[in-house]
Structures are given as C-alpha cells and as structure tokens.
C-alpha cells in the first residue's frame, strides 16, 4: 500500500470524522487572543481550518459585530465553547444558549476547576457531558490527560475527547506524551489535542503520537506573526500525519550504523 502523499498534500490516512462529519483539515482554530479581526480572518485562511471556536459572553452594545461574519465568510463552521464555566450547570446552560444563538448542537465543553491552572474539573465535566449528550448535543470535551477520564467521557457518548497537552495558553507543549499515547490507544472516538501547543513541533508531535487533530488558539493568535504561525502549524499537522503514516523507526538505546559495516578499506600505516 502506498503512503505517497497526493498532489494536494493529503495522506493515505482516511480523513478525520467527528460525529459522522468528514473534515479535510485536522487543525481546529481558537479565535481567542487575536487583537485584530483582520488578522483572525487571515489566520483562518492560512490555517485552512474548517472549524473555529468562539465563546459566549454578555452582549456589549459597543462591541463590533463582525466575528460571525468573518467566520462565515471564510466558509468555516463555528464551534461554541463553554469557557469560563466552573460548574456543570453553567456549562450546560451556556451550551444551550450557544445552540440557540448559533444554530449548532456542537459544543466544545469546558468546565474549569481552578482559576490559576485552568485545569478541567473532572466530576463536573462528566456530569455536564452526560447531560448534554442526553439533550442531543455533539459534545467535544476539553479534558485532562487522564486516560480513565477520557474513557469515561467516551462512555457517556462524547463525539471526541480533547485532552490537554499542558495548561491553556501555557505553550508548554505535550507535558505527558505517555498519557496521551494511552488515551489514543484506547479511544474509539477522535482524540483532539487541545491546549498547550506552543509552536509547530508540538502540533506535529501530537499527530505523530496518534492524535486525530489539534486545536490551537494562543499558539497562533499570540505568536509574533499569527498568520505565519497558522501557516506553520497547518504544515506541522500535515507533517505529523505524513510521518505517522510513514512509520517512524523505533527508539534504540545505542547507535545503529547506517553505513555498511563490511568493505572498509584498510589504509597503509
């Protein structure tokens, strides 16, 4: 079987599917942190993403109204999150409001347990996930890198699991690749690395480890040149996929020569 990339740079891997929907891009873009709408617009284009996240907040008469226009004019879909919610109750209500406002039953479920680290509150997350699934939502939960919690979220019917690489906005990359590997091995739903990506190599590593997709916000929006970083991370995700399909060599303790061991000339003293 050939794993030769096609002309369009796609691989032999089947495309990403979430809840029966097929995506040609494996990069989700968070819209938080962009200082100018024009930069966000250009980053959406450069990333080639098909799904971008938004948050739900109180309407502010002074705020510009072009966010949804920018997203929709690019032809990408909106994935509302429940960022800022600390209880299952608030997260469920926020998801319901998002569904009403945006006409989508997809939700990136976040229930935060700690202000300083923004780490997920596992028990509240599970309660909210189960309730939203029961209400017909396509639930993509932001979760810790705990393989057991990931399995529990899948068991209650989540359409994907979104483990963190490291804390939101920290740019620390993938702090626990071993746990991430365990999650990937056990998961029957797509695994989307969410949070912690700092630069392109983190995104490539996530895919090499077996993640199905990567979500980036700060890594792109807060880069010195967000549009260039969107471009870089798009390629990193593709590189990671190509490398994974190609099959990396095993890690070895000692060296293994790549040049022949026989046929060495013997030079005169």
């Amino acid at each position, binding site marked *: 079987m050939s794993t030769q990339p096609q002309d369009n740079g796609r691989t032999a891997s089947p495309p990403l599917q979430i809840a029966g929907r097929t995506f040609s891009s494996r990069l989700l873009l968070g819209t*938080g942190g962009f200082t100018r709408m024009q930069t966000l617009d250009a980053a959406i284009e450069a990333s080639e993403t098909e799904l971008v996240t938004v*948050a*739900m907040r109180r309407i502010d008469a002074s705020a510009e*109204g072009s*966010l949804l226009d920018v997203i929709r004019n690019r032809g990408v879909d909106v994935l509302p*999150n429940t960022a800022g919610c600390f209880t299952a109750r608030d997260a469920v209500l926020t998801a319901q409001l998002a569904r009403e406002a945006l006409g989508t039953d997809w939700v990136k479920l976040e229930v935060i347990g700690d202000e300083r680290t923004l780490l997920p509150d596992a028990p509240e997350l599970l309660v909210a996930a189960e309730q939203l699934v029961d209400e017909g939502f396509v639930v993509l939960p932001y979760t810790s890198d705990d393989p057991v919690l990931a399995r529990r979220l899948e068991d209650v019917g989540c359409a994907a699991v979104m483990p963190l690489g490291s804390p939101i906005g920290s740019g620390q990359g993938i702090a626990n690749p071993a746990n991430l590997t365990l999650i990937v091995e056990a998961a029957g739903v797509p695994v989307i690395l969410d949070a912690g990506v700092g630069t392109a190599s983190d995104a490539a590593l996530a895919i090499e480890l077996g993640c199905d997709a990567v979500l980036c916000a700060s890594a792109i929006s807060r880069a010195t040149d967000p549009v260039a970083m969107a471009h870089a991370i798009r390629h990193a995700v593709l590189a990671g996929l190509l490398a994974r399909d190609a099959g990396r060599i095993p890690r070895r303790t000692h060296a293994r020569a790549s040049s022949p061991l026989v046929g060495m000339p013997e030079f005169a003293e």
Partner: protein
Amino acid sequence: MIYVNGEPVDTRAQPTIRDVLVERGIDPATAGIAVAVDAEVARRGVWPTRTLEDGARVEIVRAVQGG
C-alpha cells in the same frame, strides 16, 4: 425592577423579553444572540410574548472571540 446582564433596570410593569432588547438598543432580529431568564434559555420564538416578573434575571449573550 429586573436585572439585565447583571445591571438593575427599572421597567414598566411586566415587559416582554422583546421590550427589554429594544430598550437596550438591540434589534431582536439580530442573528447570533440568545437570552436566558432565571437560568433557563428563552427561545427566540417567545421573546415577543414572554413577560418578565419583578426580580427576573435576564442574560443576553452572543458569540465573542474565544479559544
């Protein structure tokens, strides 16, 4: 008195949700907004008729940039 996005608002007796939106300068036809009253979603279809009791807590939200 009702509360709209956390602010106390003096209103005439039992305004509708639509009244509250209009009084705040929000066109009820605006796409991408949603309303909760006392921690429950009030669907767009009920905005013209649903009246708000004294002390009602109204939240009007929309999508903003976020990760």
